[in-house]
């Protein structure tokens, strides 16, 4: 058999894209007579700040970003994921996706297995969940088993997770009562500005790639306004394609509640957009998109989710850099690259995600790092540059520190047009980064608007 060296678009993870968004008429029929439950945020018990809203998970499930996952997990499925990183169908999946609810209210509604529950958002009908199981869990135990420990996962976990880790805190702060079952969005939301123009669910992104004639597309994960180190990562990683560099670069920003001190979502999206708007990457080769997800900052686990999302979106390649989706020093800085080059047996992956049954088809591009080299006089790749001892490394924290002190970062590390985007949103929120007030505003507004919808509820 002859094998072409040309790479083609991979199938969705699990074989087909989930599409669980129904039209309003059908939605009203599905929800008729159901008890109603208002989705509410997960709250940081220390500060009272909202740190997650499960509506984002409903959206990512229903629009196919998390395919083949089509609902919130039952106990068995969550256990399978925490033990082997596998759904009950056997497909790889990194995180337990848990719809935790107020147990007392649920009992009051008389909800039991086999029922359908209407989920309201901003006081309006939004989705339904077919209740397969109501189950209880110990949030701390789930948090620990989701991320691992240095004893159980010595390949990559460097120290025990605690409240300073936003992802661990998210699980730790759940209610302990969960509803598992399939979800459907019954009242399709409108994305608010600026989010609307970045909303490309997998079926739409695949169409867009076709429209642009992109056969090969490399994904760039982001939770940051890009500095020039990110820009170089995108440009250089895109050189790996097949018979030519990748046709397209897909920037996919994770949009949701982030840790205090990260950039605000609006600036992240428009900052990336400015990179091509002002020609630092040709617009025809660059597409900025988003996924709704309250980031767990799970480094290798997060990278697995990123692989799933971007494969579903139709990407052929995914770049992974140092400290991927990480915070603090909980993980080895190259934990993600360990996963994508050797696998992490203690996480249930004895081989890389693309070399296991029911694994992924997206190709990793493991990149070390870019730094400024004063000898070369340019931004250089760490594995090419011979002046390691002179290297001036990029640091997002350092850049944020500069900005906070009111110092405009020099153009060699930050494009002026990108900085102007930060200033634009800084003026809007009176603060350039995520703080408690931003999280509260974000929780009140969310990224979506819903039209009124008549549903007769129980």
């Amino acid at each position, binding site marked *: 058999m002859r094998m072409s060296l040309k790479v083609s678009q991979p199938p969705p993870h699990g074989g087909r894209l989930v599409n669980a968004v129904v039209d309003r008429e059908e939605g009203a029929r599905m929800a008729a007579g159901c008890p109603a439950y208002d989705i509410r945020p997960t709250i940081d018990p220390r500060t009272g700040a909202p740190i997650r809203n499960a509506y984002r998970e409903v959206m990512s499930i229903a629009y196919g970003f998390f395919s083949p996952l089509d609902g919130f997990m039952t106990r068995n499925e969550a256990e399978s994921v925490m033990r082997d990183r596998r759904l009950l169908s056997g497909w790889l999946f990194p995180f337990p996706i848990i719809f935790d609810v107020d147990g007392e209210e649920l009992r009051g509604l008389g909800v039991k297995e086999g029922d359908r529950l209407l989920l309201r958002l901003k006081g309006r009908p939004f989705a339904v969940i077919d209740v397969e199981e109501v189950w209880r869990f110990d949030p701390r135990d789930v948090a620990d088993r989701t991320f691992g420990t240095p004893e159980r996962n010595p390949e990559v976990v460097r120290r025990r997770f605690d409240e*300073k880790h936003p992802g661990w805190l998210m699980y730790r702060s759940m209610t302990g009562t969960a509803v598992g079952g399939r979800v459907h969005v019954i009242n399709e939301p409108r994305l608010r500005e600026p989010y609307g123009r970045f909303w490309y669910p997998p079926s739409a992104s695949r169409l867009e790639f076709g429209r642009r004639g992109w056969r090969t597309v490399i994904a760039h994960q982001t939770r940051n306004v890009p500095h020039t180190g990110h820009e170089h990562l995108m440009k250089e990683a895109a050189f790996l394609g097949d018979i030519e560099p990748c046709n397209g670069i897909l920037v996919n920003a994770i949009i949701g509640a982030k840790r205090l001190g990260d950039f605000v979502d609006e600036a992240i999206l428009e900052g990336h957009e400015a990179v091509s708007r002002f020609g630092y990457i040709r617009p025809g080769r660059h597409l900025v998109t988003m996924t709704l997800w309250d980031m767990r900052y799970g480094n290798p686990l997060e990278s697995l989710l990123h692989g799933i999302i971007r494969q579903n979106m139709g990407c052929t390649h995914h770049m992974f850099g*140092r400290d991927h989706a990480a915070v603090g020093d909980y993980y080895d800085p190259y934990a993600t690259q360990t996963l994508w080059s050797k696998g992490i047996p203690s996480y249930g992956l004895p081989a890389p995600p693309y070399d296991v049954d029911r694994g992924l088809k997206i190709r990793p591009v493991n990149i070390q790092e870019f730094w400024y080299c*004063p000898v070369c006089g340019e931004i250089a790749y760490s594995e090419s540059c011979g002046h390691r001892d002179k290297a001036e490394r990029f*640091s997002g924290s350092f850049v944020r520190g500069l900005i*906070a002190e*009111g110092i405009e970062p020099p153009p060699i*590390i930050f494009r002026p047009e990108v900085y102007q985007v930060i200033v634009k949103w800084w*003026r809007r929120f009176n603060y*350039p980064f995520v703080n408690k007030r931003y999280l509260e505003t974000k929780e009140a507004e969310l990224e979506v608007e819903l039209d009124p919808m008549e549903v007769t509820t129980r």
Partner: protein
Amino acid sequence: MTYKIAIVLDKARMEKVRSKGVQVKDLYGGYLKVIELEVPDELAKRILAEFPRARIDARGFIEETPIAFKRELFDSVVRMGAGPAAIEDAMRPEKLARIKELASKEDEYLPPPN
């Protein structure tokens, strides 16, 4: 383990350290001037404990400390030089109390540039 902390120098700060014999380092092709201080492990732990948002970045630098702390530290460096004593000085209880009060305001509002 020894970590580092950097103080970025704008024009006003450059003036203040000019005659103090403090070593100033060029960063990113000279676009930025910084003072780098070495932070012994114990002192680093104290800084991280005092400022919940502070963290050690990929370069081994302590970052995301309050702006008020950096200002206080800079003043201490001007008086005492760029050694651990300056850090100890900026961490004195009466200074810490003031820094924390200012830091809580910093979390609420930072004036945008004109």
